[in-house]
């Protein structure tokens, strides 16, 4: 790449960034699948996202929004119909599996379900060592030392190595999966709903673990999740997806505190919080998200939009950058009030925590 620059400070291994400063960058990514009857399913339609080193970007949407397809396409598990994926300065959009091998070492993934992502017949040591062996990390004792180090990093006891996944709870299994994903010191980690299979009290453990690891290991995170409160908690930036497209993007506080797109407002309003009578009246969307096979004309969101106008039915609003890093695709952006005052807590003390 001509327009890339090396960053000297980036940990053990130098990262090569795009001119926008992204370690991982997808431009105009489009993914379609063949649906029965020869029709096209538009899973992802022309999305661009970038993740900088040490940054956490959240990709938020409901089922069928295409968020997981984006993740899998970035991992090159799906072939994009068009668009470009650049990672560490290299265009990986069309690399062969063989050429991808060194990339896979640097770009790792953690899946949602720690029950199906770990081989039940392998010991934890073998599970965590597997990527190390595949990438010829070193001899047996080097690998064993690395596994012990990793288990400690993710907060598992040393004797965990000898045991099988079935002997661990969901949260501990997710720690094992994270240890495996960190084994090769990746530059970037894609986490697809990393905590949504876990209980609330355990979720917080894993969220804090991921944050701590990011600070220590200088990793770029792309987090796919449906829970806006969680994404707001852990992400620097948020991209909101609807029916395969990005409808809003910006800093986490901005998207959640000053949402511009009616869908973002509705999604925020739909999230239940454990406070009685704490929320303003809920904005209810009618109907369900439409099918990615038969997409509505004009704005994809118009059949459910509370403030729809005539032109939304025929004209498609472009994703416009209205402030630096802040994008929205709506003709009537900003016309709905945010459902909650994000800064309201500033007047109150923090809730009591058991550590107090």
């Amino acid at each position, binding site marked *: 790449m001509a327009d890339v620059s090396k960053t000297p400070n980036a940990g053990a291994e130098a990262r090569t960034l795009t001119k926008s400063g992204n370690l991982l960058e997808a431009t105009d990514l489009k993914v379609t699948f063949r649906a029965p009857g020869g029709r096209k399913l538009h899973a992802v339609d022309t999305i661009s996202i970038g993740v900088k080193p040490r940054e956490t970007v959240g990709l938020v949407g409901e089922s069928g929004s295409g968020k997981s397809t984006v993740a899998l396409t970035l991992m090159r598990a799906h072939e994009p119909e068009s668009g470009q994926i650049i990672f560490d300065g290299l265009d990986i959009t069309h690399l062969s599996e063989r050429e991808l091998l060194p990339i896979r070492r640097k770009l790792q993934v953690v899946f949602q379900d720690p029950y199906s992502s770990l081989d039940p017949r392998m010991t934890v040591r073998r599970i965590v060592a597997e990527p190390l062996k595949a990438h010829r990390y070193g001899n047996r004792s080097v690998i064993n030392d690395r596994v012990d180090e990793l288990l400690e990093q993710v907060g598992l006891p040393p004797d965990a190595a000898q045991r099988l996944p079935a002997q661990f709870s969901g949260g501990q299994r997710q720690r094992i999966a994270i240890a495996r994903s960190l084994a090769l010191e990746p530059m970037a980690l894609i986490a697809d709903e990393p905590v949504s299979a876990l209980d*609330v009290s355990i*979720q917080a*453990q894993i969220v804090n673990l991921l944050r701590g690891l990011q600070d220590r290991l200088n990793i770029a995170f792309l987090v796919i999740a449906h829970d806006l409160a969680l994404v*707001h*908690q852990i992400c620097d930036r948020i991209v909101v997806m609807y029916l395969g497209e990005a409808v809003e993007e910006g800093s986490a506080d901005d998207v959640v505190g000053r949402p511009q797109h009616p869908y973002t407002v509705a999604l925020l309003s739909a*999230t239940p919080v*454990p406070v009685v009578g704490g929320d303003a009246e809920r904005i209810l969307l009618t109907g369900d998200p439409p099918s990615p096979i038969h997409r509505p004309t004009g704005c994809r969101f118009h059949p459910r939009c509370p403030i729809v106008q005539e032109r939304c039915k025929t004209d498609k609003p472009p994703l416009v950058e209205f402030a630096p890093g802040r994008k929205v695709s709506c003709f009537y952006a900003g016309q709905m009030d945010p459902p909650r005052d994000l800064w309201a807590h500033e007047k109150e003390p923090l809730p009591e925590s058991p550590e107090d």
Partner: protein
Amino acid sequence: MSIVEEVAPSASPVPETGERVLRVNDLVVEFPRPDRSGFRAVNGVDIELRRGETLGIVGESGSGKTMIALSLLGIVPLPGKIIEGTISLRGRRIDNLPPREIRKVRGNDIGIVFQDPMTGLNPVRTVGSQLMESALRHNNLSRREAEERAFKALDDVGIPAARERLKAYPHELSGGLRQRVMIALALINHPSVIVADEPTTALDATIQAQILDLFRLRLARSTMILITHDLGVAAEICDRIAVMYAGRIVETGTIEDVLSNPRHPYTVGLLAAVPKFDVRRPKLVPIPGQPPTADDVVRGCAFSPRCSFATPECEERPLLEDRGGRPVACWHPRGSGV
């Protein structure tokens, strides 16, 4: 000990005069273990439900909340069984009924909403025929009357074009509509109690909001037990909640009291672990460790190994009893008593 009677009447939005509809007394559900005594998934739970109120049973995986729902329905999966306690519905014991009799109660006097409508509905039969079957089984109706009732049931839960939907198969409906059908099925025979087990957990946020709205507006006066892991969902539709941990209720009270003044350290911990919309993003405070599994032997307070306030006193199990105005099973309750 009952739950209702210990709540200060003024604190409850539900008139205390409501007739007692359901009473669960010292319920114990046990699963055999190969080596030692059985594992008690539910371990001495008391519940009282009055007409028109919604009680939330809140807990995490393995806390026993779903097993309570299954006990009410008489469908505790084998080899588990109710070994102690009683369940009474409108004054009549239903925990010891023969299968034939409990079937007359289930779907009739107790309506059921499960988490996943795809498993709760028969995929090869139309929505209308399933609704009509339930109406016909429990009532003396003509087919025409049953069809009218099925239509009314769908219409009542906000399904548009209800007449045509009677002919639809479950797979032809979206997830949100299917859950509405489940609710219609639960309501069709005007049950005394509705048991809803995680009714919105499988749904997307915007669809969940629609169903919660349905609960709030159209089922507000229903008598209901809501099983959920989500304190946010409970906050929306419950009058009272009971927080469960390791098979026992650890705290109970009106939803306002429990959320604004949590007293059991587990409830305090749960609330601190939930991400909130706050620009300061206070670090989430996890509860350390793991809940006990079916293989663990629990002594004293089951939460004490994870509790930062535990003292030697906690080796003796604290009973769920009034501590400063509300039932809490803890020697060292947090927050303030009344």
